[in-house]
């Protein structure tokens, strides 16, 4: 079985982002998606700190620390890009103007509940940022995460055990093993990595998954 590495996961997500989309990429793994967006599509990247039309990192020596992304790293602005203040930036998110956001996650439930901001550990310092706004605001919420924790437990769960970021907000899950849609009937597997079988995916995930005809996964 060929588990996807982080760049392959990013490339897989990038394939599903259409021409003309306005997209917010969360901090961490989702940030990698920017490196894989098809060059022949115009896609507008939104950054919560007030940018639409964000470009790649600047060349060494060209950094401007008044032009940063949500991770506080220097970025550039594409021709046609715009700056705006925080309330406008979050109105774009909360008002349903973004087509897609891609978020990392600790857990996603069968119903599309998302947990990605807090482990709930007593000594943990909680930090939420814009995750809850994106989770409820974007037209489509894509989650990108490893299928299993480091201890081998499924991050796709019946009920999230970590504190929730949003209720029934996830539309699609991209993991290193599969692409899965959250539907009203349940979790529907769209793709599996080469060599993965239905039996094996069921075994590692541990909760019921829906499939198309088996031949679709060849």
């Amino acid at each position, binding site marked *: 079985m060929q588990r996807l590495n982080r760049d392959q996961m990013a490339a897989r997500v990038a394939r599903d982002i259409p021409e003309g989309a306005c997209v917010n990429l969360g901090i961490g793994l989702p940030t990698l998606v920017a490196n894989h967006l098809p060059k022949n599509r115009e896609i507008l990247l939104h950054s919560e700190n007030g940018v639409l039309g964000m470009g790649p990192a600047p060349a060494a020596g060209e950094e401007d620390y008044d032009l940063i992304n949500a991770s506080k790293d220097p970025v550039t602005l594409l021709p046609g890009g715009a700056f705006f203040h925080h309330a406008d930036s979050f109105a774009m998110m909360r008002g349903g103007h973004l087509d897609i956001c891609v978020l990392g996650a600790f857990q996603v439930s069968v119903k599309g509940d998302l947990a990605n901001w807090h482990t709930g550990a007593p000594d943990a310092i909680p930090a939420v940022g814009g995750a809850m706004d994106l989770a409820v605001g974007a037209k489509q919420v894509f989650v990108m995460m490893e299928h299993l924790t480091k201890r081998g437990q499924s991050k796709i769960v019946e009920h999230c055990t970590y504190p929730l970021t*949003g209720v029934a907000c996830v539309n699609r899950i991209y993991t290193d093993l599969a692409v899965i849609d959250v539907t009203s009937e349940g979790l529907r597997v769209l793709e599996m990595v080469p060599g993965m079988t239905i039996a094996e995916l069921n075994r590692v995930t541990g909760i019921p998954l829906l499939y198309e005809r088996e031949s679709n996964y060849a």
Partner: protein
Amino acid sequence: MIDKIVSSVTEALADVPDGATILIGGFGPAGMPAELIDGLIAQGAKDLTIVNNNAGNGETGLAALLKARRVRKILCSFPRQVDSHIFDALYRAGEIELELVPQGNLAERIRAAGAGIGGFYTRTGYGTLLAEGKETRTIDGRGYVLEHPIRADYALIKAEAADRWGNLVFRKTARNFGPVMATAARCTVAQVNRIVELGELDPETIVTPGIYVKRIVHVPRAEAAAGRAVA
């Protein structure tokens, strides 16, 4: 003649009382009014409630204000950072109160205060820990949470240029919370890189009209950068 330009950071902050609620602009270092924060530390006001997206980085700026034990409570969306050790230690010791606010709620609650809105319902946070104990309502079949405005005594912000009426323009992503915070405080103080003549700012591009700004302090970028290098 209207002239909001004051001669120094010291003069701009002279009347900040103990117990004040202060909005501080910036998203990380971009747009953070570092010299105004240094001025606030020197001025000595304590028992402050601070509103900022973060809870300080490294040892300077907001982190230094926290380290000086001037802050009773902080409202922010993302306190935990690789270099937020000063906040982390105070929080773990129970020596600072934290109200964790989703970033969009932070911006919108400040905006509401500035716009005279008594509260608003938002989907953000519905069904999560951060909505516990808050009034909720179902609107068009979806759950919403009631959030209240964040009003402040002072707003300390950084802008690129100002005229003597207090009109402001900003620079790139250093704009972030500045224009919103400017509307929500009884006294908004802006540190600016340049002061220009009245009429020099293109009225089509003024981001914050002077009505929201009480005091302007000139802190040229070169001086600011040199100050940071020394610190």
